[in-house]
């Protein structure tokens, strides 16, 4: 079978006139790095599950995207992340919601799938499970970026609808 990999980094009102050239360059480079990372696994005969986790981790680590570092702020000024992973061979799945301290939430979703009897964990329980699994933790300031803070401030100041802001920036 020929291998394939497809990725996304968010959808919305993305216009040429509003995207700065430097930011566009960074985004394209990050997408390409994610593809390279996943492709390397697949081209060497590795598993699709490993490839999707590795590709997503690249995007989680890049502040240009709304996941991991660079995640948007809640109304209360915190970063709460969600993620999910699923294996098509077994239909095993794992997901986490509202986690705050795992550097790569996608790896926590995989740990839920592989190392717990559950499909979804949330909030403080998921944070605790992450620590117990020995996953890398990061402080709140790692996830927060000035640009995301500015977006929250804009939302509050202009009373934009939540969907307007997410589709514009998410």
């Amino acid at each position, binding site marked *: 079978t020929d291998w394939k990999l497809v*990725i996304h980094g968010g959808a*919305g009102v993305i216009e040429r006139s509003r995207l700065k050239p430097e930011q566009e360059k960074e985004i394209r480079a990050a997408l390409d790095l994610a593809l390279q990372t996943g492709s390397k696994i697949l081209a060497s005969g590795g598993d699709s599950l490993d490839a999707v986790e590795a590709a997503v981790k690249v995007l989680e680590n890049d502040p240009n995207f709304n996941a991991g570092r660079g995640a948007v702020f809640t109304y209360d000024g915190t970063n709460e992340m969600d993620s999910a992973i699923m*294996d098509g061979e077994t239909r095993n799945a794992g997901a986490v919601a509202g986690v705050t301290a795992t550097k790569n939430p996608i790896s926590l979703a995989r740990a839920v799938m592989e190392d717990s009897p559950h499909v979804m964990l949330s909030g403080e329980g998921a944070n605790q499970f992450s620590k117990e699994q020995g996953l890398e933790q990061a402080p709140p300031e790692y996830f927060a970026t000035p640009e995301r803070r500015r977006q929250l401030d804009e939302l509050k100041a202009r009373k934009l609808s939540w969907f307007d802001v997410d589709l514009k920036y998410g």
Partner: protein
Amino acid sequence: TVGAVALDTKGHVAAATSTGGLTGKRWDRIGDSPIIGAGTYADDRACAVSATGAGEYFIRAGVAHEICARIRMKGDGGKEAADAVMAEVKALGGDGGVIVVTPKGEATWSFNTPGMYRGKASAEGRTVAIFGDE
């Protein structure tokens, strides 16, 4: 929201999705990303899907599972199924996009927004795109 779907050389598919949620969200709001069947789904009998967009609409439409169900039970192609389900999302009032791979080797996407950060790779090479007309 970021995501990836893949088909490996053994013919198995997988999907992964990760997000920060919605700017200014309150009340412990959860979107579609961690909801298996809405934002993420993988089934070797059909396809793997990851979604991005206005999560509440994707939950109502059961987007990721619905695309797989159309492929498995109706015989749709990946692009055909993705476009049909994204049209349902649009009809409900939602915006966003999906990426899809099938065990047969179809790798595609569908979105109803002006743009989507996206990319594809295979043994033939890699492609990255942002704007709708790319």
